[in-house]
């Protein structure tokens, strides 16, 4: 549980620190003295609901993966039957594909910011296709592993490998729903500004899942 604790402690520290910074020198019982005086600034315009929502959601997803990884390590240490999974070369290829997907979405975000509609269209579609390719690639890895006798029930290392990759892929597929909405808006001819918000969220979410994948892959490689 150490990992979870550290991750959560960091998240909590940031959050609690922010809350304290908002409250430490405030004397809440003091009211505004005049209607004419401007009311305190509380929410900067750049802090939109979807952005806050994404940050909170990423915190939740972090918790899910931190706990899974903690469970992985604890199970590895507690049991005596751990036999590592081989890492098919395809995993490296998949990683590359996911990196490209992330890059594509980053470019799409950039294109949306600068009003380059054709580039946005191309990169957004590319991001989605690459993601689907990644998920299919992961499925192929599963098939390769089970063909080689690494069933889920054969060893906890296998079970965890399937579980973690499945969780990760499910999060990507969930992201594709948001991606689909953005694409739909774009092809529906919506203003670029409205599409941009969605593309931005997708890009951040993809980067985050790439990071998660890097951690998971690193974990599988080193254990």
């Amino acid at each position: 549980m150490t990992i979870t604790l550290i991750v959560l402690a960091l998240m909590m520290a940031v959050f609690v620190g922010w809350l304290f910074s908002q409250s430490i020198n405030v004397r809440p019982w003091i009211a505004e003295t005049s209607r004419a005086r401007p009311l305190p600034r509380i929410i900067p315009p750049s802090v939109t609901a979807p952005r806050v929502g994404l940050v909170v959601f990423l915190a939740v997803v972090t918790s899910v993966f931190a706990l899974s990884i903690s469970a992985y390590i604890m199970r590895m240490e507690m049991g005596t039957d751990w036999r590592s999974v081989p890492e098919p070369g395809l995993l490296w290829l998949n990683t590359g594909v996911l990196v490209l997907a992330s890059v594509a979405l980053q470019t799409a975000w950039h294109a949306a910011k600068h009003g380059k509609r054709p580039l946005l269209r191309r990169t957004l579609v590319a991001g989605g296709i690459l993601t689907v390719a990644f998920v299919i690639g992961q499925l192929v890895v599963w098939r390769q592993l089970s063909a080689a006798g690494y069933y889920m029930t054969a060893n906890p290392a296998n079970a965890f490998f399937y579980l973690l990759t499945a969780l990760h892929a499910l999060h990507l597929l969930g992201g594709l729903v948001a991606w689909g909405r953005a694409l739909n808006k774009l092809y529906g001819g919506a203003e670029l500004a409205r599409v941009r918000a969605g593309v931005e969220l997708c890009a951040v979410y993809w980067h985050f899942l790439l990071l998660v994948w890097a951690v998971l892959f690193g974990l599988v490689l080193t254990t």
Partner: protein
Amino acid sequence: MAMAIALIVLALGSVVFFFLSPWYLTPLASNWGAIDHTITISFWVTGVVYLAITFFLAVALIRYRYKRHRRSLYEPENKKLEVWLTVLTSLGIAALLAPGLFVWGSFVTVPDDAHEVEVVGQQWHWSFRFPGEDGELGPVRASLISDDNPYGIDPDDPRGQDDILVRSPRLMLPIDRPVKMTLRSKDVIHNFKVPPFRAKMDAIPGQTSYFWLTPTKTGEFEAVCAELCGIGHFAMRGRVEVVDQQTFDEWLAGKPTFGELAAREPGDPEAGAEHFARCVACHGPQGGGKQETNAPRLAGLDAEYLKRQLRNFRIGARGTNEADRFGQQMRPFATSLQDEDVIADLIAYLETLPVESTRPTIAGDVERGKRLYRTCASCHGPEGQGMPAFNAPRLAGMNDWYLVRQLQHFREGVRGRHPEDWYGNQMVDMTQILVDEAALRDVVAYIGSLSEAPAVADAGRQSAEE
């Protein structure tokens, strides 16, 4: 006003209840007086806080109850007061925590001179293992567990050979000697709890856990399971008897080691057939049971059960109650069977006998019986085939009139109440769910319906051949 009075009455009532209630810690029987002290300290500290807060609250409610012209005080905070309260609370907490941690330090440190007992939990009974002469418990593996090796001890490891096995849920401990209880489970999580000892711990499958204590009082104490372990959880009992060293040594010497158990010769069915001659008159030529003589079927029962019942009759754990007329008839026969080898032969012979279907004599509501049987199924098996691992004998194919009588006996405590009848007392608890005579007949009628296609005694015969 009513509220304030209610609070004061409740607070005082709670304190009075604390002093007058007949329920408190059971008399201590181990070295863990320190645990009792920490409880006492906790009661004092929390009691004072409880009364202080409640009375302050009550006074506030009385003094500051609504009055038309009263104005509340406007006081957003009072730093000094808050700091004081925080400091005082922290001190109180420290006063609770410090002794607790101190005692915990000794709780986790087993003294060097402690001897070791392994407690093995299993649905739903306890068994024990002593390390034997080498002072070391042999390694165990779940995959090695079988009827012949109930503890799953590694037969190739010399450390396991001299381990002394206590398969009954009855443990003896010498007084005034620290003992380390190593806990292990064969299936789900259990918890070995003897209330007067205070200490307890979960027994977990796949790993061991421990606690230690020094028994300080002789006598017999009840052990219960304190971690939900399935349907029979409430009936998972054992006994710990604290005795002087000599009695303990004698008792332990009478228990078999793993090596001895493994070397024991299997019974000879042919010799058993001769011994069986004296049983035929009542139990029938094929051990099929005879209602005229009130003797039940023996064929189809597992070896452990037969052995255990013969022992129960012999030592008077069964068949001594006035109300058990037919049980009393069995006693002299059982007492004449003293020789372990004779019993082994006899049982080996019984296992070769075929199980024929019995004629139903009891009518009942089979559907209702089926519902009631759900509980029984968890030990006796969904088909009533009996499960030796749960110490549960076969029911399907047994004479229904016999089952009815035994269920009645269990329910009324005629059978199973004797402390030496290890699993009988589980049945006393279990039969309480058969609230009336009809329920009892219904469940037996259902058991009768299970035996219609008896593919019986195969398991028994196989183990006899091995």
